[in-house]
């Protein structure tokens, strides 16, 4: 089945220790998104790739970076995680369609910062 896969599902890191979360998709969608979600809140968009074009949200901290080496994979790098970065990180994909994009989410990675 076509899907969005996130690894790992659970990640524990130490304060200040860089961490990378990964997302892969078999949907062949041209857009990939990274969201941060804190407890019982709506997902907050960090950035997205439209093909190879990177689009950063204005309020996304510099601590968060992303890479998309090919259509199928996208990575979220947190350079120096702080306690406030503990959250669920969601990857989503879509096909760009004049604002009618339907986004499909992965299962998420729960990040714990010690």
């Amino acid at each position: 089945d076509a899907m969005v896969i996130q690894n790992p599902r659970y990640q524990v890191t130490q304060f200040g220790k860089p961490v990378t979360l990964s997302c892969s998709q078999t949907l062949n969608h041209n857009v990939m998104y990274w969201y941060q979600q804190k407890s019982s809140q709506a997902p907050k968009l960090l950035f997205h790739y439209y093909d190879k074009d990177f689009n950063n949200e204005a309020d996304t901290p510099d601590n968060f970076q992303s890479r998309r080496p090919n259509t199928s994979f996208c990575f979220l790098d947190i350079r120096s995680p702080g306690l406030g970065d503990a959250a669920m990180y969601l990857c989503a994909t879509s096909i760009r369609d004049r604002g009618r994009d339907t986004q499909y989410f992965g299962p998420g990675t729960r990040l714990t910062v010690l």
Partner: protein
Amino acid sequence: TQLLEQSPQFLSIQEGENLTVYCNSSSVFSSLQWYRQEPGEGPVLLVTVVTGGEVKKLKRLTFQFGDARKDSSLHITAAQPGDTGLYLCAGGLNLIDGGSQGNLIFGKGTKLSVKP
């Protein structure tokens, strides 16, 4: 600033009751998506509506998109404990409306608890 007001924020009901969740905005959306999310999991798409006045049904769930494409509702008939979760509405904007093409505007979510 585009906002999508979702209400109620919390809802606790008994099995068998009906409920409605609302999403309202002053912005016109090209599409409106509803998701359901369980704890520790990603949001799962329930439906996408794109036409003003559109009504879609998914078993006991009925979704409606307002005629002006500014609002939407989700109605659940005879709720069951398995319906428990966080329901999110999200509106899509195109460049004509001033939004970032393809990005979604999320409501704050409705946390539904259905007790047996």
